[in-house]
């Protein structure tokens, strides 16, 4: 590959531009223009004989001539020398990328990129570095290029520090000077990669932004910088694309002479040929007026749907569109885009200069209550829209008003020249519109999907510009990326871009309230944490400690069961460290064991420790779902009556929950089959047709099936054999193998020994002791009391459940009575007699 900038036209342009006459051309042009204007004053003075007329005329001609000369030079410098179309020698960048050996790639550099490369060469020459690699190129770009500085600034990088680090790095890697100046392999790779990026982006010349993208991909120094700032090369690509698009919009805006810019003035002739819409104007929003005020707003995403809608609207008859999509996916943006393109004259000829008018049904309904009058007004409105000849009528959330408008609208929909857009949701379509198939046949249904994460980033970047201007605050690109990442993960039931836009708005308000000047990623994590009540973002020191000590924390509430606790703690750590599958639930566990051994308690402890609250546990007793007809209760239904699912609705509302499915073996087999998809795919479609995502849940199924085998093994002193128990469950058709296989772990809870029960008694009495301490009463837990409680409650088949009853009956009741009867006073010390369960106050 050849790379020699000295042979290029762009290099000559760079050198020419540095010539003082070009450098000061713009200034001199203005100076002589003012002088020319001033010369008129002198001419006027000469008419009053106060100044020499000849001199005034000479000055006027001279200043005008010089103004013209420098204007010409300044235009030549700006429009020709600095422009990208210097590569007029017939070569094509894509050919050069295919066969780099045959081309001098420096020929394809833009004016700015050439200055960057020249800067790198000069920098190395000054330091007697003869082998120029990619790092000086990066240094030169960051030092001289405004756009690169802006990108680094928005990426949250410290430009000054980066420059210093780069300088040090170049100095450090200085090698023995060679005889001639050469470019290293990685320098040439960067230029070739930048050329490839240009071809991908449809550009004719290699710009400084493409060089930055190539540096992010191949320069080791920049890679390290990105890693330390928690950035990826994709982020650099996104931000350069966005900056390109902003610059493009700005330059289009400045070019007032283009047909697109001139078209923004509309068409008076076409307007005069169309009719008035008096009644419609009273109850409507004219999107043409709104979009005419937008200077830089760009509609991103759903291009295919926009084009499809336009094709339907341009049809001769039945030009009615029904936009169907979840609220928040950008259905209204499609209408705005059509309005914008009609206004700019960039649409199909049949649609150009048309008005997109949204009928405000809410305003109409609030002002007219009488049904007959309403029908008359609606008829007049539709009549006007048809007669005007330049109206595309829009009704938002059409399903909500279907009963009111269906009859009248059906009259107009089949008419030629009646152009209509209805906006609805899937729910509205299924429940209201599909009931009237004859009404639906007038429409071409267009489904509006959620926009992609990449498009959402671009939407947020544009919205961020508006917010920055409004609140005088800087929104860093990593914050925007964090919003998209976290909103995607933590608000699964709301579509993009709405959820991301809402979060951005809130984050900015939060940062402003905190008097911050820059919106940082940790602000985003704070807002998401507040909204979800889940710790997100970078792990705090305290949280790391909790995660590392999860076993100990659970064991503060659970006695024994170390295997179960270990398995579940590992799953949580995997999820929090971000290495678990994002498609499946965070963990799915089957807890097997007799009753009262701590299966539910473990789940509660986990909900408390990881999700912050026991109320974050969705507990469903599966013994209530023994018939197949119970499925609608679990996942919801719309007919015969609409009901919310006991499982799906709470999960949609609280996607971060621990789901405890108690006594799973008692549920109907087909109901268990529903969970196969949940464990595998991480979602289920509820009765209302909505997706309930389980990717942020921990699912724990408990069962005491096979408890007799566990007891038998314990009695005979054998070690508990998990496989034997599972074989028993499969053999007896309690669970199918495919069901058991889908759990991350099947965990056996051991029956409790007397020693375990003594510890549990200590835990339970400890909680009573803590409550009494709040009343400044000291409660002494004696060994004899614990032993007595264990003796009274030891029934292996009931586990520790019986113990709670005994403590309530014997201990808590006695203490409560004594408290109410004022037998115990503050600062008293009490003990319980293990035989009689009487309270001993201040024992010796």
């Amino acid at each position, binding site marked *: 590959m050849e790379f020699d900038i000295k042979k290029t036209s762009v290099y000559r342009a760079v050198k020419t531009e540095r010539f003082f006459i070009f450098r000061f051309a713009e200034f001199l042009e203005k100076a002589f223009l003012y002088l020319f204007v001033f010369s008129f004053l002198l001419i006027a003075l000469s008419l009053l004989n106060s100044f020499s007329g000849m001199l005034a005329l000479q000055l006027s*001609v001279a200043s005008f*001539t010089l103004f013209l000369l420098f204007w010409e030079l300044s235009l030549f410098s700006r429009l020709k020398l600095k422009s990208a179309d210097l590569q007029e020698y017939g070569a094509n960048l894509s050919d050069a990328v295919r066969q780099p050996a045959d081309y001098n790639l420096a020929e394809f550099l833009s004016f700015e990129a050439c200055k960057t490369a020249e800067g790198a060469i000069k920098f190395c020459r000054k330091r007697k570095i003869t082998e120029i690699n990619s790092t000086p190129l990066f240094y030169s770009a960051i030092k001289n290029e405004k756009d690169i500085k802006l990108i680094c600034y928005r990426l949250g990088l410290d430009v000054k520090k980066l420059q210093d680090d780069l300088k040090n790095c170049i100095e450090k890697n200085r090698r023995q000077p060679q005889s001639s100046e050469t470019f290293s392999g990685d320098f040439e790779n960067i230029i070739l990669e930048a050329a490839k990026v240009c071809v991908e982006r449809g550009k004719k010349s290699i710009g400084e932004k493409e060089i930055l993208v190539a540096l992010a991909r191949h320069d080791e120094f920049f890679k390290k910088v990105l890693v330390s700032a928690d950035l990826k090369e994709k982020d650099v690509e996104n931000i350069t694309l966005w900056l390109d698009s902003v610059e493009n919009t700005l330059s289009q805006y400045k070019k007032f*002479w283009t047909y697109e810019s*001139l078209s923004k003035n509309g068409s*008076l002739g076409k307007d005069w*040929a169309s009719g008035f819409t008096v009644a419609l104007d009273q109850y409507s929003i004219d999107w043409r007026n709104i979009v005419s005020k937008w200077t830089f707003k760009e509609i991103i995403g759903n291009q295919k749907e926009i084009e499809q809608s336009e094709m339907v609207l341009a049809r001769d008859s039945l030009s009615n569109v029904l936009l169907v999509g979840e609220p928040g996916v950008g259905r209204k943006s499609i209408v705005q885009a059509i309005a914008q393109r009609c206004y700019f004259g960039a649409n199909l000829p049949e649609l150009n200069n048309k008005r997109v008018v949204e009928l405000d049904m809410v305003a109409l309904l609030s002002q007219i209550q009488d049904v007959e009058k309403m029908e008359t007004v609606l008829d007049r409105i539709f009549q006007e829209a048809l007669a005007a000849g330049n109206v595309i009528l829009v009704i938002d959330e059409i399903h909500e008003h279907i009963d009111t408008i269906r009859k009248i609208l059906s009259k107009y929909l089949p008419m030629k020249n009646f152009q209509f857009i209805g906006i609805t949701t899937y729910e509205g379509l299924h429940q209201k519109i599909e009931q009237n198939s004859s009404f639906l046949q007038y429409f071409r249904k267009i489904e509006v999907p959620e926009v992609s994460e990449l498009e959402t980033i671009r939407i947020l970047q544009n919205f961020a510009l508006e917010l920055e201007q409004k609140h005088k605050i800087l929104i860093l690109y990593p914050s925007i990326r964090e919003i998209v990442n976290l909103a995607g993960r933590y608000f699964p039931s709301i579509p993009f871009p709405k959820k991301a836009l809402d979060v951005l708005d809130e984050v900015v308000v939060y940062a402003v309230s905190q008097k911050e000047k820059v919106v940082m990623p940790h602000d985003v994590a704070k807002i998401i944490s507040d909204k979800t009540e889940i710790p997100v973002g970078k792990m705090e020191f305290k949280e790391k400690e909790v995660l590392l000590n999860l076993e100990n924390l659970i064991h503060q509430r659970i006695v024994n069961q170390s295997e179960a606790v270990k398995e579940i703690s590992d799953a949580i750590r995997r999820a929090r460290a971000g290495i678990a599958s994002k498609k499946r639930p965070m963990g799915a566990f089957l807890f097997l064991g007799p009753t009262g051994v701590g299966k539910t308690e473990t789940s509660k402890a986990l909900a408390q420790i990881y999700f912050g609250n026991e109320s974050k546990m969705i507990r469903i007793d599966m013994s209530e779902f023994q018939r197949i007809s119970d499925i609608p209760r679990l996942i919801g239904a719309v007919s015969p009556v609409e009901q919310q699912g006991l499982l799906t609705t709470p999960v949609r509302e609280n996607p971060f929950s621990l789901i405890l499915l108690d006594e799973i073996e008692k549920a109907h087999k087909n109901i268990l089959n529903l969970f196969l998809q949940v464990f595998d795919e991480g979602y289920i479609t509820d009765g209302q047709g909505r997706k309930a995502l389980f990717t942020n849940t921990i699912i724990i199924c408990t069962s005491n099936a096979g408890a007799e085998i566990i007891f038998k093994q314990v009695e005979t002193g054998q070690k508990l054999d998990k496989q034997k128990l599972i074989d028993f469950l499969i053999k007896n058709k309690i669970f199918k193998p495919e069901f058991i296989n889908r759990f991350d772990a099947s965990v056996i809870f051991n029956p409790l020994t007397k020693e375990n029960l003594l510890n549990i008694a200590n835990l339970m009495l400890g909680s009573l002791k803590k409550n009494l301490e709040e009343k400044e009463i000291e409660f002494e837990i004696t060994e004899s009391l614990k032993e007595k409680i264990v003796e009274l409650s030891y029934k292996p088949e009931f586990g520790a459940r019986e113990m709670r009853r005994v403590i309530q009956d014997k201990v808590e009741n006695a203490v409560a009575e004594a408290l109410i009867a004022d037998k115990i006073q503050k600062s008293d010390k009490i003990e319980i007699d293990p035989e009689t369960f009487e309270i001993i106050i201040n024992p010796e």
Partner: protein
Amino acid sequence: MEQAGERNIITLWFLWHFYEMPKFLFSVWKNYLKFGSNYFSIPLLFKTLFSPWRRYKWMYPKGFDIIEFFNTLISNFFSRVLGAICRVILIVIGIIFQIFIFISGILVILFWLFIPLIIISGFLIVFST
């Protein structure tokens, strides 16, 4: 393959001034003419010259009501007359605008082409007097 780098600055300027810029000015001129024709839509105004003003039409009575019939006839007639007057005015303005753009375009392009000559003449005038 001709290398652009081999061209000197004078050749570049010459090409730019006498070929690229006039081409650009022609495209701007074309844009303005196109805009004028769309903005005033003169053919459409001619086509709808006698259409009612803003499509305002009164419906004729369904039964036999001679007074109402004449009322409607006169109203519709005036609506058409008003439409025709407004459109004729707009057509005239549109034609004047297009003529103005046409002449301005020619003048601007000619002025651009003669700039070097004007500069040389300017210097000659200044130095000769």
